[in-house]
């Protein structure tokens, strides 16, 4: 087996010798993004474009940790909350990338349990229950993006906890578990648990939810958190904690806001995964927007680290460089995925670069040593706000190359949606403020494109390091942002009129907000398809190679035409054989695409949308592709607890 691994690794090295030290060489999938460079690339080649059509289910397992929401009698949840067996459970969102490491598949669940599975059968080796509170403390759903793995440099088999699995909970507890036995590591925090909320000392309105697994490098755990920056104007200020992987002791803290900003704003947190440049000892953070999401009158002074990609020194947490991607963010355009690190061959030179994808649809290609653009980024003027108390940034960074995945103008009214709604779409569009990209939220309602669910979400992109081909799936979604004066908002809230319809209070700000996706009364998108696509770029030139609709919308069970594509959540992975594996679409399909053309070569139905990155690994000479099919209420109410592995038949 080891000979096979070695040969596999050597062949990849030989093929990609000019591309630096970042490439994945492992048959494992040891982190959320496959590796610390967030390339989402596997060097495995057993499954090829020629034989992928033969791919079959190797095993499937159900964890039991799933809820469609509501009371236990509504079905679809198999484990009552620990506190009250009769209490309602929120629905589950399961975006966990499975890990394959230590000859085991590990995954976390939305009930905050860890499962260790046999990689060739899916049989449960052990499971661990954090006994977390199953309440929607900061998110509307019970949510988990998986687990993290650490091992000592020279593991001593005679000692416990030389290899560990970490999982966070919505109530801010970080658990450390022995990867071999499933027992808590007593030397970590108190009895294997660190309460991250002990450092939630400013504007502590809600717990610092650890939904994204920590990023692990050397003996550090880098821990970001999620919150609810739509609820209040002033929130816990954004932080990232570096903990000792063995003891859980705090090594350093990164603060995204200075004390003055923290007193009147909050968040600018890191809720997505991070990347690490081992050679340069840099940690890259995707920093989200400051609070509240859609009004910035309380934070008119520039918050330079908000909505940025920021590089820190791994050992000290000091900022090495930071590049703001959206100035004075009032659109909730959180930087939402780990940047992909890649050495680019350009003009005869090797550039240590990163690619930061974004909700706004831009691909920011930066020199990761300095943060300077590899392809020029321009400051362009954008519309002013008309809202009293607000002052939109007069300019925003604009990326001409690589071409943004979505255009500067929304696609326009979809004739079919307009006709079947008797002109609702065109009538509504005529009443909205629409001045293209970065149109500020307004009192009359603004068409925002791309909006907070659009462009590129937390799956980010994947890269083939041998060719510099970068692949990313994206959504084309039009949303309406309407600010509502505080008195009117509170009056409606008191009357019970804000229970549905995307209302967010932003308490403490002079406005609440209604955020809706631009649909007609029948639920059809009012804008022209495609609604989701996947595209490939050549990072050596910045040119787009192909761009095709991806997935299918499914409404009431009916699949819409393939040319319409689907809103997507989740991301792609690439294998060295020239394949892309991806779930992400709302039709609950998982697919394999040809990296050269984007053509779908294989697809299979799973029990809910696979809104996580798949994992690719090899075990006993066989290549597996594993998806967690968990669903996400943003796409469809369909949820599941299924983890499913595909492989070529023997």
């Amino acid at each position, binding site marked *: 087996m080891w000979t096979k691994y070695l040969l596999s690794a050597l062949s990849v090295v030989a093929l990609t010798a000019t591309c630096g030290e970042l490439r994945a060489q492992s048959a494992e999938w040891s982190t959320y993004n496959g590796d610390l460079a967030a390339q989402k690339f596997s060097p495995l080649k057993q499954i090829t474009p020629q034989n992928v059509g033969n791919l079959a289910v190797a095993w499937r397992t159900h964890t039991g940790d799933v809820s469609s929401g509501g009371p236990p009698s509504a079905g679809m949840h198999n484990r009552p909350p620990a506190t009250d067996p009769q209490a309602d459970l929120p629905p589950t969102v399961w975006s966990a990338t499975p890990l394959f490491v230590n000859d085991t598949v590990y995954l976390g669940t939305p009930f905050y349990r860890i499962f260790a599975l046999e990689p060739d059968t899916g049989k449960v080796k052990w499971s661990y229950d954090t006994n977390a509170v199953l309440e929607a403390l900061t998110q509307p759903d019970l949510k988990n993006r998986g687990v993290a793995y650490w091992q000592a440099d020279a593991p001593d088999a005679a000692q416990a906890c030389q290899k560990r699995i970490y999982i966070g909970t919505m109530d801010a507890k970080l658990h450390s578990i022995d990867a071999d036995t499933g027992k808590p590591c007593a030397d970590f925090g108190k009895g294997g648990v660190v309460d991250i909320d002990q450092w939630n000392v400013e504007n502590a309105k809600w717990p610092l939810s650890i939904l994204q697994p920590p990023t692990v490098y050397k003996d550090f755990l880098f821990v970001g958190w999620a919150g609810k920056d739509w609820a209040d104007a002033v929130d816990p200020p954004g932080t990232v904690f570096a903990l000792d992987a063995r003891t859980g002791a705090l090594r350093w803290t990164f603060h995204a806001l200075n004390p003055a900003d923290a007193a009147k704003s909050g968040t600018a947190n890191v809720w997505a995964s991070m990347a690490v440049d081992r050679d340069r000892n840099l940690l890259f953070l995707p920093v989200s927007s400051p609070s509240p999401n859609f009004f910035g009158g309380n934070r008119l002074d520039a918050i330079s680290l908000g909505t940025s990609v920021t590089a820190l020194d791994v050992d000290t947490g000091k900022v090495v460089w930071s590049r703001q991607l959206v100035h004075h963010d009032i659109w909730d355009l959180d930087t939402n995925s780990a940047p992909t690190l890649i050495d680019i061959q350009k003009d005869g030179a090797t550039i240590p670069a990163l690619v930061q994808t974004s909700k706004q649809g831009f691909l920011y290609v930066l020199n990761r040593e300095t943060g300077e653009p590899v392809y020029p980024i321009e400051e362009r003027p954008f519309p002013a706000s008309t809202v009293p108390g607000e002052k939109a940034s007069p300019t925003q960074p604009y990326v001409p190359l690589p071409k943004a995945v979505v255009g500067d103008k929304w696609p326009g009214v979809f004739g079919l949606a307009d006709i079947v709604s008797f002109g609702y779409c065109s009538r509504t569009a005529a009443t909205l403020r629409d001045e293209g990209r970065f149109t500020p939220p307004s009192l009359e309602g603004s068409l925002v494109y791309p909006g907070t669910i659009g462009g590129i979400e937390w799956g980010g992109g994947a890269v083939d390091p041998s060719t510099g081909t970068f692949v990313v799936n994206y959504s084309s979604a039009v949303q309406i942002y309407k600010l509502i004066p505080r008195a009117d908002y509170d009056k409606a809230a008191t009357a019970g009129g804000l229970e549905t319809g995307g209302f967010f209070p932003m308490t403490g700000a002079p406005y609440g907000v209604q955020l809706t996706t631009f649909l007609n009364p029948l639920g059809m998108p009012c804008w022209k398809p495609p609604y989701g696509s996947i595209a490939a770029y050549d990072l050596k030139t910045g040119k787009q190679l192909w761009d095709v609709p991806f997935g299918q919308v*499914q409404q*009431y*069970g*009916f*699949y*819409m035409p393939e040319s319409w594509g689907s809103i997507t959540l989740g991301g792609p992975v690439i294998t060295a054989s020239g394949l892309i594996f991806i779930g992400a679409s709302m*039709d*609950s399909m998982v697919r394999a695409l040809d990296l050269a053309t984007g053509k779908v070569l294989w697809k299979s*139905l799973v*029990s809910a949308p696979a809104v996580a990155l798949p994992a690719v690994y090899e075990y006993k000479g066989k290549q597996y592709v594993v998806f967690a099919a968990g669903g996400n209420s943003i796409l469809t109410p369909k949820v599941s607890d299924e983890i499913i592995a595909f492989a070529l038949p023997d």
Partner: protein
Amino acid sequence: MTKISGILNDAGAALMVLASLGGLIVSIFNYFNPDSGIAGEPGTLLVIASTILLALFGMALAKLNSGFLRSFFIVSSLLNIAGTSFAGYLLHSQTLVILMLVSLLGWILHVFRRRRAFA
């Protein structure tokens, strides 16, 4: 008994009834099979209802020789077959689409056999 013998005497109507009952079984299976991709979906319920209706239409056509009701059921059956086929296509239920094509064959047989009979 009369109804059954009426259907059996009319191969076209019989084919319509059988195909629609086949479509009903397939659709019920899809509705309850979590791996169908359309389990529990309103669209699947719709084709369950439409195949039941089509089976009833087929039975009625076997009984009726002429008149407004017969014309109504002939047109309604054709619309039902077209609608169910389209729904089956959108539901990715190829079996249902094939069964609706068989049902269409039955409808054609029924209509043209009757025409010849009355010519």
